[in-house]
């Protein structure tokens, strides 16, 4: 290195960079006290807000769908009615009843002549 370069180097070194403002020191102290976590930026905050609103809207939609499905399903019978239905004896249908004597006689009267011979 030349003599003039050395002189220039010394002259440059006589200038000192301006000191750090207290604002920076305070900001670093805050950031390090917060575990070194950088504060959320505006864009990140917007993204989080949109995601939160989306999740809420999805929950409302799912809730409405479930409510609608439940509303359209047939209503269950109240338990009291169920018990009554079990306890009431079943009414036999007319077809299942045995024929009366009168019905027999009428049928015999309408039948052909073969039947009295068989019965004889």
């Amino acid at each position: 290195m030349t003599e003039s370069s050395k002189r220039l180097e010394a002259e440059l070194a006589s200038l000192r960079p301006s000191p750090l403002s207290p604002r920076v020191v305070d900001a670093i102290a805050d950031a390090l006290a917060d575990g070194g976590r950088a504060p959320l930026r505006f864009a990140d905050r917007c993204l989080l807000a949109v995601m939160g609103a989306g999740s809420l809207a999805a929950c409302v939609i799912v809730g409405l769908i479930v409510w609608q499905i439940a509303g359209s399903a047939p209503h269950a019978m109240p338990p009291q009615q169920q018990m009554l239905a079990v306890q009431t004896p079943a009414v036999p249908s007319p077809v299942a009843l045995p024929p009366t004597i009168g019905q027999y006689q009428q049928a015999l009267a309408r039948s052909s002549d073969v039947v009295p011979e068989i019965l004889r």
Partner: protein
Amino acid sequence: MSTSGVGEDDQAWRAWLGRHGPALVLYARQWCRTRPDSEDAVQDGFVRFWKSRQDAGAGAPSQVRDETAYLFACVRTAALDLARAAGRRRHHEGNVSAFEAPADREDLREVVEVALEKLPEEQREVLVLKIWAGLTFAQIGELLAIPANTASSRYRYALERLEALLAKEFSQ
């Protein structure tokens, strides 16, 4: 962490910042241009540096060989990020000085600030790191991922060019 540990940690980072803070702002100013932006870059870079230092102290793997070089590298990254984000509003801040100078050297301060602006970025960067940050060529080489000899050459070229620029300025 104990209360005394927090206190020691607080003293330690303040000592680091006190030692390197002014040079870090000057270094960041090469990309950020305005003083508030430079200080924001120092803040971001320093917090990142100290956090990784704490992680390394807690046993996390670390590739850092020279902590001072790594601190300047963190601030460099933060300054470049900020400059990229604020690219459209970049302007030169002429009224706030980057240097403090004795009253009798005020003329030198003004001329040096103008001449530094005219240096190629790679030379200016090495000059700032060598003269005002006090880094060795080995540290500069590690920071910029270049051989120490290359850092030394850039420094020599920067001084020669600055000498010519200053001679021209003083002759006017």
